[in-house]
């Protein structure tokens, strides 16, 4: 139910990893509800943040600020200049208002379900079910806390995220993804019809989990695609189901509510993994006190820091840190040489070849060139191996050389791509396809729909 019969209302339906090539092209005919929203509104590929990764991207989408301004560069971030590793970004890392904070300041009610960057749940004018970074439902995962029991009852046991993802039991994993998406939309329907709200946001992680686990089955361009395998149509069937859930959710919304469907980034086939720290060792830039006995994360490797110039952290993109005198405890790079050493390293990374001797096409980015401000502790270099066709492997001792194609460091079906999706329909939202949409446009657009002003420093444009 809405909080006012006359006030404007806005709904954000987030599809983590929603990919334009799938939603707007390959499966467009399988998604009549989304296609109808497109016909009625403005839509197109949505340029993500740098890096295109869920936590910084959703934080940026709903604050209108860059990862640099937020000081959040990934799921985990450096906490100091020591070598002790990285700590998770949580809701408490966010020191700027997001759309629901601004709505609350204006006396407007919000309902939030699964929006990344909301664990631990915080006080909101309305209610909140926290995100996939909730450790379990044993922790407080709602605001108010009492909502947790209702969520458990309505859902029959709330699924925070897919578990056991690396299992060989693909059928079980697939079923979990389908069930989680169904449950998210069922909960959103329930809260939409039982709570007062002006702004409602629900984010489903299902597309991301499906893409990481099953992309090769549906994409003929993936190097490990096998036509006719049992999961060849799984992604199509998932999007058909998602579209039905979307239709059921839209049915319960007030006619006047504006609807924004958005994703934080897209997906693309992953060619393999590049062993970043293994390469730094071979280049003489990372010195080990002892070789690893087997696959070893960099945080647990025995590193001789006094002989190390740089080290890296892996994941869907690479982060490189220089070991700088006066900054790191055993820094070796004189501060006066920082720019030169970093530039040389960037050049080497850009010049890397793939396993067949062809240029990888790596992109190496400097944080201060990407962001208007660099808060917190940013990596010295951000690396997209093969323009994100390759993942960055931070672990050492894999015994596979510089390139890995096996699945022992995580799923290798899909990596992230730099464009997600946006479809927005409602009063003042129209114009059809656009090619210039940015993730920074989402917050100002939602705020405009809700009759709220812009917050300080916010980027992007109002599309309404």
């Amino acid at each position: 139910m809405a909080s006012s019969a006359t006030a404007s209302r806005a709904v954000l339906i987030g599809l983590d990893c929603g990919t334009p090539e799938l939603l707007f092209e390959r499966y467009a005919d399988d998604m009549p509800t989304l296609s109808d929203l497109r016909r009625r509104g403005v839509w197109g590929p949505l340029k993500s943040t740098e890096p295109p990764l869920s936590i910084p991207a959703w934080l940026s989408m709903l604050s209108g600020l860059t990862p640099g301004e937020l000081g959040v560069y990934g799921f985990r971030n450096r906490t100091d200049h020591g070598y002790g590793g990285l700590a998770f970004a949580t809701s408490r890392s966010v020191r700027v208002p997001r759309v629901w904070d601004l709505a609350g300041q204006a006396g407007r009610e919000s309902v939030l379900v699964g929006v990344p960057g909301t664990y631990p749940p915080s006080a909101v004018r309305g209610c909140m079910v926290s995100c996939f970074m909730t450790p379990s439902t044993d922790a407080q995962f709602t605001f108010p806390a009492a909502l947790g029991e209702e969520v458990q009852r309505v859902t029959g046991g709330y699924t925070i995220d897919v578990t056991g993802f690396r299992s060989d039991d693909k059928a079980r994993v697939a079923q979990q993804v389908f069930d989680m998406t169904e449950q998210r939309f069922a909960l959103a329907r329930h809260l939409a019809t039982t709570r007062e709200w002006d702004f409602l946001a629900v984010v489903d992680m299902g597309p991301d989990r499906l893409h990481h686990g099953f992309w090769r089955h549906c994409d003929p361009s993936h190097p490990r695609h096998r036509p006719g395998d049992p999961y060849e149509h799984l992604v199509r069937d998932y999007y058909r189901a998602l579209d039905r859930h979307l239709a059921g959710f839209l049915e319960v919304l007030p006619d006047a509510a504006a609807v924004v469907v958005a994703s934080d980034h897209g997906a693309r086939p992953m060619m393999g993994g590049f062993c970043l720290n293994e390469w730094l060792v071979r280049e003489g830039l990372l010195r080990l006190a002892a070789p690893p006995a087997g696959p070893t994360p960099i945080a647990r490797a025995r590193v001789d820091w006094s002989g190390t110039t740089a080290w890296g952290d892996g994941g869907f993109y690479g982060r490189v840190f220089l070991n700088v005198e006066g900054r790191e405890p055993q820094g070796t790079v004189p501060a006066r040489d920082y720019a030169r050493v970093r530039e040389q390293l960037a050049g080497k990374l850009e010049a890397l070849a793939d396993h067949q001797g062809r240029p990888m096409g790596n992109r190496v980015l400097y944080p201060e060139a990407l962001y208007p401000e660099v808060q917190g502790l940013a990596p010295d270099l951000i690396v997209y191996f093969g323009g994100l066709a390759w993942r960055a492997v931070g672990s050492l001792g894999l015994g596979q050389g510089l390139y890995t194609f096996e699945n022992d460091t995580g799923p290798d079906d899909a990596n992230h791509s730099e464009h997600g999706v946006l479809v927005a329909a409602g009063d003042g939202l129209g114009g059809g396809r656009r090619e210039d949409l940015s993730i920074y446009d989402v917050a100002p657009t939602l705020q405009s729909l809700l009759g709220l002003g812009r917050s300080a420093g916010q980027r992007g444009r109002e599309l309404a």
Partner: protein
Amino acid sequence: MSRGGTPADGGRPDEPAEPVPPVADEEAYSVEEEDEVAARLEALGYLD
């Protein structure tokens, strides 16, 4: 740039504020909870 606090901490969007500190927040998770989240994200390929 001007940066405000959140409603929860009493800030206003137009208030100047301290630069955002590093994102460490050890209080958000117990050790066991952090391990649980890390294992889940590692299996998905987000951490390495």
